[in-house]
């Protein structure tokens, strides 16, 4: 190899390196290379094909100097040539006319191709594509030329891989941005429906898909229920249960499922519905919260497409963010429900307390009022806002002669206390029974004191009347008993005295027996009064003693 040639190779290598270092898009790298190499290497055409992992074939990436008809031929070259290149070895064909592969030979001759050098494009010892250098004049590729071309192809491999990685990185950054924005949106609300709707609308947009559904496992039966959908017809959504579809079962087990061609995939049940809806590809991912699957997201595309790892990871991340937001929204919904229930119970309790006739006051440990029912407020002529927080002593002022305050007793002793307070009112004396009951916390300490104040005036007055009636009945019974017990002996005494009075008429004892008869008659008049008693009045007797006024 002469120095002039080496210098030229160096120049080409430098130019190619410079060119690929300036471009990041792999497609652009390929286009630049195929257009630059013919001039640099004194060839007529150049193609780059990339390995399609799914089909195992080399798919055209970029070409220069060739007709579309040539490029559209079904086979690139003979199976042997392709296998050789795929294993990492260059294949040089100086005379295309000698090629044993007829379709290629004929296509190449039609295109006027005479010689072809096929090179592997490798990256990290893995063939990711092939590069072909073609001439329309016969050419024998020398060893150093082949070596140089292999090195150049490796450089191309590095450039393509870098471009791919850069694109992936760029895509991941884009996904990260979108994930961040979706996360922000779904976490900015505690409204479950809004969370779900945000996901079904934004996720397909990020994945260049058209439709999206969210199905959630609803407690307690864990039934899979459609919770939100976007970009899909009602008819499609109502097609039936999807719980028995293999893709659903797999997603519910926590795995992502990507289906490129739903029409021919047995993991889908509703082929006809999907066709009618124009769905070609599907991605199903689980919605997980703390390793538990709570539902699935399905992204539906109207073009046949694959979902890259980055897209699947992105969907899983969105599903996870959605899962947290769904759980938060559900928890918030539960809390709101509980809160409403508590409020309802509180209102109910307050109504009950307001309907209770006795006054009710609740005082905390510091002796401040925390609750008062309507009866208390009305009796004391105060507003609730005024009473709450007020010091107990200001609310219930006691006179010096009043019994000890039961609320203070409870705060000191921790035991229930009762007292009866007497108040002089316009309509006379009124009595109030004050019962203070402790409400203790878990530690056993008094947290609140419930005081119930009952107006027992009517009861007291009734008791007094009953006592009076019972006293009267006693007096009347006593009078009756006395009259009865006295009257029989009195009858005997008076009658006998009257008989004696007759017997002693005219004698010296007549006056004495007359005195006896007169006094016995006085007694009989008194007992007669006693027998007809229905009420009584008393009069002073001696000192503190009073007697019945007959």
């Amino acid at each position, binding site marked *: 190899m002469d120095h002039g040639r080496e210098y030229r190779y160096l120049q080409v290598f430098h130019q190619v390196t410079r060119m690929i270092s300036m471009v990041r898009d792999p497609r652009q790298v390929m286009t630049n290379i195929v257009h630059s190499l013919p001039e640099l290497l004194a060839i007529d055409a150049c193609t780059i094909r990339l390995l399609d992992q799914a089909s195992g074939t080399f798919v055209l990436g970029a070409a220069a100097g060739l007709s579309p008809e040539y490029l559209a031929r079904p086979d690139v070259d003979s199976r042997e040539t392709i296998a050789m290149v795929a294993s990492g070895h260059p294949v040089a064909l100086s005379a295309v006319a000698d090629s044993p592969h007829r379709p290629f030979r004929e296509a190449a001759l039609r295109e006027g191709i005479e010689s072809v050098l096929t090179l592997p494009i490798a990256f990290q010892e893995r063939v990711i594509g092939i590069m072909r250098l073609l001439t329309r004049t016969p050419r024998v590729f020398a060893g150093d030329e082949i070596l140089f071309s292999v090195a150049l192809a490796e450089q191309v491999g590095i450039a393509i891989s870098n471009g791919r990685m850069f694109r992936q990185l760029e895509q991941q950054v884009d996904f990260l941005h979108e994930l961040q924005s979706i996360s922000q949106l779904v976490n900015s609300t505690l409204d479950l429906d809004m969370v779900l709707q945000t996901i079904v609308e934004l996720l397909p947009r990020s994945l260049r898909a058209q439709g999206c559904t969210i199905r959630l496992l609803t407690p307690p039966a864990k039934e899979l229920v459609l919770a939100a959908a976007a970009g899909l017809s009602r008819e499609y959504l109502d097609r039936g249960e999807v719980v028995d579809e293999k893709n659903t079962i797999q997603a519910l087990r926590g795995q992502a499922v990507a289906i490129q061609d739903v029409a021919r995939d047995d993991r889908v049940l509703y082929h006809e519905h999907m066709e009618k809806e124009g769905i070609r590809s599907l991605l199903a991912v689980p919605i997980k919260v703390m390793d538990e699957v709570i539902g699935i997201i399905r992204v539906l595309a109207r073009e046949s497409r694959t979902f890259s790892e980055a897209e699947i990871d992105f969907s899983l991340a969105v599903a996870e963010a959605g899962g947290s937001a769904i759980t938060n929204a559900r928890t918030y919904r539960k809390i709101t429900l509980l809160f409403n229930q508590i409020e309802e119970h509180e209102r109910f309790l307050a109504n009950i307390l307001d309907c209770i006739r006795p006054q009710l006051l609740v005082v905390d440990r510091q002796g401040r009022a925390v609750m008062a029912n309507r009866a208390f407020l009305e009796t004391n002529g105060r507003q609730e806002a005024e009473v709450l927080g007020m010091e107990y002593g200001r609310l219930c002022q006691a006179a010096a002669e009043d019994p000890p305050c039961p609320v203070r007793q409870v705060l000191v002793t921790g035991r229930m206390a009762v007292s009866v307070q007497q108040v002089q009112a316009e309509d006379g004396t009124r009595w109030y029974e004050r019962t203070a009951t402790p409400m203790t916390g878990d530690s056993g300490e008094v947290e609140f004191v419930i005081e119930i104040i009952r107006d027992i005036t009517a009861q007291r007055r009734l008791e007094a009347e009953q006592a009076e009636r019972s006293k009267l009945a006693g007096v009347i019974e006593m009078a009756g008993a006395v009259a009865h017990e006295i009257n029989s002996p009195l009858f005997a005494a008076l*009658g006998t005295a009257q008989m004696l009075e007759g017997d002693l008429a005219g004698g010296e004892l007549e006056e004495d027996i007359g005195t006896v008869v007169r006094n016995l008659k006085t007694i009989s008049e008194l007992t007669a009064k006693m027998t007809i008693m229905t009420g009584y009045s008393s009069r002073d007797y001696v000192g503190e003693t009073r007697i019945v006024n007959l």
Partner: protein
Amino acid sequence: MAEILVLDDVLDATVLVGKILTRKGHVVHTFTEEDAALDFVRTHPVDLAILDIKLQKMSGIEVLRLMKQAVPDMHAIMLTGYPTVETAREAVNLGADEYCVKPIDKQELEDKVAKILEGRSGRI
């Protein structure tokens, strides 16, 4: 002259009534126990019974009912130290001629007995 029965749980009261009415020429049989008085009524002619309402075992009203069952034409004066509307109404319903409150005046007793017995004679 009439056959008169006196029943009172106070012995002195029966003795007194006996003395008053004996002086008026009547035959007076005095009792302090109900059973003895009832036995007497069933076995002897009695024109008038003077009964106390408060007795030892039963009430004078109850005794009156039993005596009236035995001798429907027998006259009766009820005596009580403690008059009540209920006992007065029952006594009248059972056919008592008088309902008197103790201590009854000697003269009043003599007059009431005489009046009742006169009515009896008239009826005869």
